[in-house]
């Protein structure tokens, strides 16, 4: 019995009391989290992001720098019928030796296809970026207020129902006929009501977040509406915004191509991919070099922008940051 007690006592000596320090237990040792740094880390982890980004940079550089060295004039050989629709080899023969200008042959009026594509790509990219910037900015601001304010909501729903029921193509067609078909009037036609559908989509997103508990807490602290929107709502919608951008940007390029194709696009003196495709479509079996290169470039730009946008949207979702 005494033996047993001794062992127990000895056992107790093996243990000793340690003071707990409540402050050290509060310490967080994980590295600091930064939202945007994590976004870029996840974005560049994907190989497709790097490849697509390199391709985009290449296309941007070529289409924005080269037109000043390669001025495109669709009517430069219009008086010389012998230059019409020549294959690359024949064109180089005709114009005397190898030249980048005739690398893709000539168009239906003796114009350089390569120069046309380069200048057209610039127009398409500019159009996409400008239209997306205008529509997204107006759409997000209006959509945020629309989703937050119940009074504004009832007014805007009526406006939306009226305008959204007018066929979009019809509206653009009429606008292009009325205000002309220059670059800026085309931008105007695409943005005058284009923001409305973005705003409507955004309204729904805002409504989902509006009544969450932390927004309620902000209300109890008397936070003004603009700060609730900028601090409580928009940061949660970053990935939604980027996803939207990923589908909006290429859609303007397709829109331009489509509208030019049906004949209400940019005017003939503005180089554009859509215009080139439309000009070549009737002869794409006989003169395939006039048709496929602009189609390929337009598709490539659309695909690159879409893939990049999707990768960025994935990366901007904080659930992928772990």
């Amino acid at each position, binding site marked *: 019995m005494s033996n047993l007690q001794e062992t127990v006592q000895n056992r107790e000596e093996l243990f000793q009391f340690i003071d707990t320090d409540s402050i050290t237990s509060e310490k*967080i040792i994980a590295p600091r989290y930064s939202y945007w740094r994590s976004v870029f880390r996840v974005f560049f982890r994907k190989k497709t992001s790097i490849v697509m980004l390199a391709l985009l940079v290449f296309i941007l550089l070529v289409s924005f720098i080269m037109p000043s060295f390669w001025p495109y004039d669709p009517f430069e050989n219009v008086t010389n019928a012998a230059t019409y629709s020549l294959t690359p080899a024949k064109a180089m023969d005709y114009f005397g030796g190898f030249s980048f200008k005739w690398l893709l042959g000539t168009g239906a009026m003796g114009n350089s296809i390569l120069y046309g594509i380069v200048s057209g790509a610039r127009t398409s990219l500019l159009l996409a970026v400008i239209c997306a910037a205008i529509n997204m900015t107006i759409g997000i601001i209006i959509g945020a207020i629309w989703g937050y304010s119940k009074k504004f909501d009832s007014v805007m729903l009526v406006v939306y129902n009226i305008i959204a029921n007018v066929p979009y193509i019809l509206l653009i067609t009429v606008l292009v006929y009325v205000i002309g078909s220059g670059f800026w009037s085309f931008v105007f036609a695409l943005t005058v009501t284009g923001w409305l559908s973005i705003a409507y989509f955004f309204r729904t997103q805002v409504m989902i977040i509006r009544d969450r508990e932390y927004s309620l807490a902000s209300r109890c602290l008397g936070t003004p509406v603009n700060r609730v929107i900028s601090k409580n709502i928009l940061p949660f919608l970053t990935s939604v915004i980027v996803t939207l951008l990923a589908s909006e940007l290429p859609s303007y390029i397709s829109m331009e191509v489509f509208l030019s194709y049906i004949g209400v696009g940019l005017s003939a003196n503005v180089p554009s991919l859509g215009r080139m495709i439309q000009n070549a479509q009737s002869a794409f079996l006989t003169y395939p070099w006039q048709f496929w290169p602009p189609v390929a470039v337009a598709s490539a730009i659309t695909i690159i922008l879409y893939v990049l946008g999707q990768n960025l949207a994935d990366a901007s979702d904080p659930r992928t940051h772990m």
Partner: protein
Amino acid sequence: METTKKEVLLSIQNLDVVFGRGKKSFKAVSDVSFDIYKGETLSLVGESGSGKTTIGRAIMRINPCSAGAIYYNGEKISGKLSRKADREVIRKIQMIFQDPAASLNERATIEYIISEGLYNFHLYKDERDRIAKIEKVIRDVGLLPEHLTRYPHEFSGGQRQRVGIARSIVMEPEFIVADEPISALDVSIRAQVLNLLKKFQNERGLTYLFIAHDLSIVRFISDRIVVIYKGRIMEIAETEELFSYPLHPYTKSLISAIPIPDPIIEKSKRLFVYSTDLHDYSTEQPALVDIGNGHMVYGSPSEIEKYKAIRFGG
């Protein structure tokens, strides 16, 4: 205790809260009246869906009152207010939320979350003063100033709830609505948060409306208890009075549901199940009646006589 001598801070009078309109309308709170005295902790107890949170939110003016009024320091705060009065009430009445995960903005740093109210009311002289204020409050709740640059998802539930408390305390409020502040927390840290609330009450003379469904916690923290069932007040009494003499059958059922930390007693415990069939209100109209000693019970005149007999002997 003589309750009549105390100063009434918040008074709710015949409050009704109705959600929806017409046929679909649902009356969440009906004819609720009670006073909260300065410096006390009043607990609102009832089962889920009994309207506790709705009353708390009506005080915060998140839910509009359909009828009745709420007075704060003698001034009406329900319905439309002037901008100045509105700002004043927002600053003086703060809320602590139930879910510490949902009530903090996940995309804002702790510094912004705690400073939010300070920014809104410009309650600081300059940047240094603001930093000093939030550093003091974060130490007061037992966190570290280095946490200020962190995001809510990096904290445990108890730490988050303390951030929530810091956010309301930094406003230097007079009255705090604590909406089940510990029900989402682990049992091991509940006491920590409750002690923190008590500490602030002692230091700053705060008044709490404590909303809970757990009577054992309520007994620890509150001075008076309001028992509510389906949007109606069943009983109001001081804490010990209520636990010694639970009169309304619903209160009895709540008290019988408190777990006893002894398996033998717990097993043989008789659970009291409440049902409205216990009452016969076909001939007599029930009302909330003061039966003396600050104890109010909801019942018909004959029931009240019975309750009085139980309470004061006879």
